[in-house]
């Protein structure tokens, strides 16, 4: 099992979600984060235009069987891409144990149902 974490543009989140759905990834958690990277965001306050490097991002996190890591990465890569600075990152981590609270299922069994 692997945990896939992706940091994507807020405006791309729904697109990514749809792409994941098409890749049969229907189980995920996400939240809003602030991100700093190479991208800048222009803002204006009382006549002063300024750039901030703090940008709202969506952090997506889900755990999948090893076999599904690649296709989920691909789904994100394709859907979150714009080509402009700020598209984000994907990180993959090893997961030791997973449990589904409702059923007590463990390991791969605890993950999403569809293969």
């Amino acid at each position, binding site marked *: 099992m692997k945990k896939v974490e992706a940091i994507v*543009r*807020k*405006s791309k989140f729904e697109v990514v979600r*749809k792409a994941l759905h098409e890749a049969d990834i229907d189980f995920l958690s996400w939240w809003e984060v602030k991100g700093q990277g190479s991208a800048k965001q222009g*803002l*204006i*306050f009382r006549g002063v235009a300024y750039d901030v490097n*703090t940008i*709202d991002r969506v952090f997506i996190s889900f755990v999948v069987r090893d076999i599904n890591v690649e296709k989920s990465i691909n789904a994100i890569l394709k859907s979150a891409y714009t080509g402009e600075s700020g598209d984000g990152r994907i990180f993959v981590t090893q997961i030791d144990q997973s449990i589904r609270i409702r059923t007590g299922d463990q390991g791969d069994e605890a993950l999403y149902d569809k293969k």
Partner: protein
Amino acid sequence: MINKFIKYIGLPLGLSALLPVFSFAQAAVAAAAPVAAKPVPFISAGNTAWMLVATALVMLMTIPGLALFYGGLVRSKNILNVLMQCFILTAVITLEWIVFGYSNAFGSSTGALAPYIGGFDWAFLKGIGINDVSPYFISQETERIPHLVFVLFQCMFAVITPALIIGAFAERMKFRGFLVFSLLWAIVVYNPVAHWVWSADGWLFKLGALDFAGGTVVHVNAGIAALVIAVMLGKRRLPSGQHITAPHNIPLVVMGAALLWFGWFGFNAGSGLAADGLAASAFLTTHVAAAAAALSWALLDWFINKKPTVVGIATGAVAGLVAITPAAGFVDISGALIIGLLVSVFCFFMVSVVKVKFGYDDSLDAFGVHGIGGIWGAIATGLFASPLIQSAYSGAFYGNPKQLGIQLIAIASTLIYSGVMTVILFKVVEKTLGIRATEEEEDAGLDITQHHETAYSDAE
């Protein structure tokens, strides 16, 4: 000495002063009906006090009332755009109104145009002195308000009408296109229609159309424009299969609805232009219709979907306020109750069945609530107008079926004129400036793309 005196007081008064026996009568009944000579209207401090407040209340309806009501319903990435739209219309339409809008709507013109649009005599409020009495009055012929107060009161109506349309195109319109469209619409649609119905020269006024506070001029007018734009602009880019977006902040919606209700007392009870029994009656019908419609929507929610909702009851209250608007100074309590109880049924059906079926994206139901509610209110005025409220006006249920016909003409001509002109103006703006936001702008949200701001920020 008598001559000199006459010079000061004016001939009519001077003449009757020759009849001392009359003097007491005149004095004693000053507040009641005039005897013989037409009395000179003057500025009543009491009526002016009420109308100054009513004017401020109607402004409050647009900002922050409507702004919050609409702003809470959209997604958080678009709230500033909605607030900005309401705010800038308040500024721009106010200036347009002063410059020539008031003159177009309430002034006179000559020749064939007279029934359709006023001229430019009052442009920049030229010739209106600060102590001039209003040429317009309803129940109080003598105890008037300053003309400027009438100008201001009507200004707030001119502001809110295009603002209502925002609900139809929220979350997907370019700001520049929006602004130019709205200003043109105010000039080309609102001012003439206001002239038709409310000006002494207006053809619908002369026909006898009844519209106490703007059912046709404001709500039907804005409502049909909303529908047209929603259709022409196309749907928002929502996740596939989804046609609903959850309101991002319902407490703002409630605040907005409550402020609309509060402000509407000025809108409706102010439309009699005096603080008298008619104002009291209009206040009462307004409050009762809003309450009835709010409850009625809550019950529909409860029966049909098992739970009464907050957005539902707020929407119902607004629908009730819309529907009673044309009728407020003509119907009694029973009329208000029926108008209120039924309007929620019509609007509920419209937004939960018809809109879904036809699939146009009237984002915040500007047509579903204001269009439908306004049409129902205008019809209901033709049904329930009671001579016990204003003796000169009766509806079909009080023996005057003709009134219903007149109301239908007023509704139909507004629907057609406003609908057609909206199509034209939309096309013009679309071709010249562009009117629909790009996909990227829509996805990223209009706040950041149109205004370089975000509504909520945690940053240091």
